[in-house]
């Protein structure tokens, strides 16, 4: 089954009187349960592509299909609902809610989903332990290091066991040991829950876990290769 299908995606940004290419006729298909790395130099279009797949940004042309449904025409409300129930996002800039503690940040999505408080609490505690943040549950983001915030962001993305995780540089601020632990966690989820992973990175350690590496350059796919792990 196809998890994501992008057909001829184009996206240009206008900044002042300059046109910046974000995506240039990108066609990509990802099967359910795949573990894909998006690799590109800075400005290559990784974030733009993830945003398009997650329905956070509308492409100028082309089609985006997620879990068999075309999403690039959906309303904002419908897109939000799709994200809520199908996709876990790890943002490049973490994007934690600054007024909420680590635990509350992790619980937030479940709260929006309307899950009972007890279940939320249990799940949040478990997942924070999984990313190695036991004892920091009640800290505010501002009182945590970049790596810790990044792990809270990861915990928030995977706590609902979404069908697909879109992660933007999830290891950028982690030491190699923590990065390895995190990747093991991703691989574990991928194996046990058939979670589809699309991870934007230029971290060699991350790429070594991927079975497929898609390379972008200036918004175009220049290489798409399978690899053994």
């Amino acid at each position, binding site marked *: 089954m196809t998890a994501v299908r992008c057909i001829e995606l184009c996206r240009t940004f206008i900044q002042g009187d300059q046109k910046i290419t974000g995506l240039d006729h990108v066609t990509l298909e990802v099967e359910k349960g795949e573990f894909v790395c998006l690799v590109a130099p800075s400005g290559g279009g990784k974030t733009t592509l993830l945003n398009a797949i997650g329905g956070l940004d509308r492409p100028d042309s082309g089609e985006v299909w997620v879990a068999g449904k075309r999403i690039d025409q959906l309303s904002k409300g419908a897109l*939000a609902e799709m994200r809520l129930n199908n996709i876990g996002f790890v943002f490049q800039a973490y994007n934690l809610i600054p007024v909420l503690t680590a635990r509350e940040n992790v619980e937030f999505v479940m709260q929006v989903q309307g899950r009972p408080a007890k279940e939320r609490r249990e799940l949040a505690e478990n997942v924070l332990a999984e990313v190695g943040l036991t004892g920091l549950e009640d800290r505010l983001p501002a009182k945590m290091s970049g790596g810790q915030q990044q792990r809270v962001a990861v915990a928030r993305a995977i706590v609902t066991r979404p069908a697909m995780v879109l992660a933007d540089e999830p290891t950028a601020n982690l030491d190699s040991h923590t990065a390895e632990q995190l990747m093991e966690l991703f691989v574990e989820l991928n194996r046990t829950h058939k979670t589809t992973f699309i991870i934007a990175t230029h971290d060699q350690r991350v790429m070594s876990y991927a079975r497929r590496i898609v390379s972008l350059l200036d918004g175009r796919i220049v290489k798409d290769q399978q690899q053994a792990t």
Partner: protein
Amino acid sequence: MAFSNVILVFMISLQFGMYGMMIDNTLALFTGHLQVQANGYKDDKKIRQTVPDAAALADRLSETIDGARVAVRANAFALVSSADRSFGVQVVGVQPDKEPGISTLPGLVVTGSYLQGRSEEVVIGSILARNLKVGVDDELTLIGSGKDGSFAAVVATVSGIFESGIAVLDRNMVEMPLSLFQETFFMGDSAHEIVMRMPGLDDVPLAVSAVSAALPSDQDLVVHDWDALQPGLKQAIQADIAGAWFMYGVLVVLVAFSVLNTVLMSVLERTREFGIVLSLGLSPGRLAWLVMLETALMAILGLLLGVLIGWAVTAWFGYAGFSYPGMEVMADKFNLPARIFPQATMLSLFLGPGVVFVGTLLASIYPALRIHLLEPVQAMRAA
């Protein structure tokens, strides 16, 4: 917002208290709350249209009507002359011991004293005194026609000069003891008005029906309340009320705008957070709803606090009275109460805050709508 609600409650209550007081002060000067007269006398003041045996009827009324102060008056037109001048005036016969109970005029005597109970004395207005060039203890001659149309005349001593600030009274009025009046104008024991003052303006409607019931049925007498006696008064107050409403309207609009500004700021301030929660899957509709709910809670809190504190403040001043600098001097000069007692009614309590509440809810619609325009990615990029 809570603060402006407190102000609104207090101001409106104060205003209501003030109208009550303005009406009452005006009536306290001379007219009284209600009067018993011969039918038709109000519109055509003929000296023949009298209330027979007025003093006895007045005594009976003051016994039957709880809390009422009652006095008898008689009116006639006369020519008053001093040594060198003459003027047409209204002569009013009053009961010197009872008149102070229904009128503040006796307290406004600035030179000499009010009627002392001597038989041939008068008090006159300050302008009249100046025009006649007379002072206290000078003699005046009054000439008019009596109840039966015959020639009436009397010489009396000025015992006091009053200054009410109302030109008509100060220029045209002479008060003398009722007994002297009745003797001079051949009235017998009859008079023209039984003037009554109740403890409060609110007591008037009940008193009117009670007095009507107590009137002897064989005489053609009627009761007029203050609105009938002074038809202009209510209109004047109502015109003032219209002006006050306009002021409150402006205040409410100002509050609504400050709320709009606050809500809008609080939305803009949190653009990044809103972007995050949208990107995590909270729908724009729900987020907008939450913002409106937040504003509504704030508004409810403001409403409750405003009404509660406003009510407390009003109740305190309603008990202790409210006065502003300079008011005491004015009050002293015109023989009026020195304090306003604000009235907290359901209307004055909830009107202002209620309108602010609705205005707040309306003001939160625009910021909530703006959330629908928010693009998560752009919002998250906002610092």
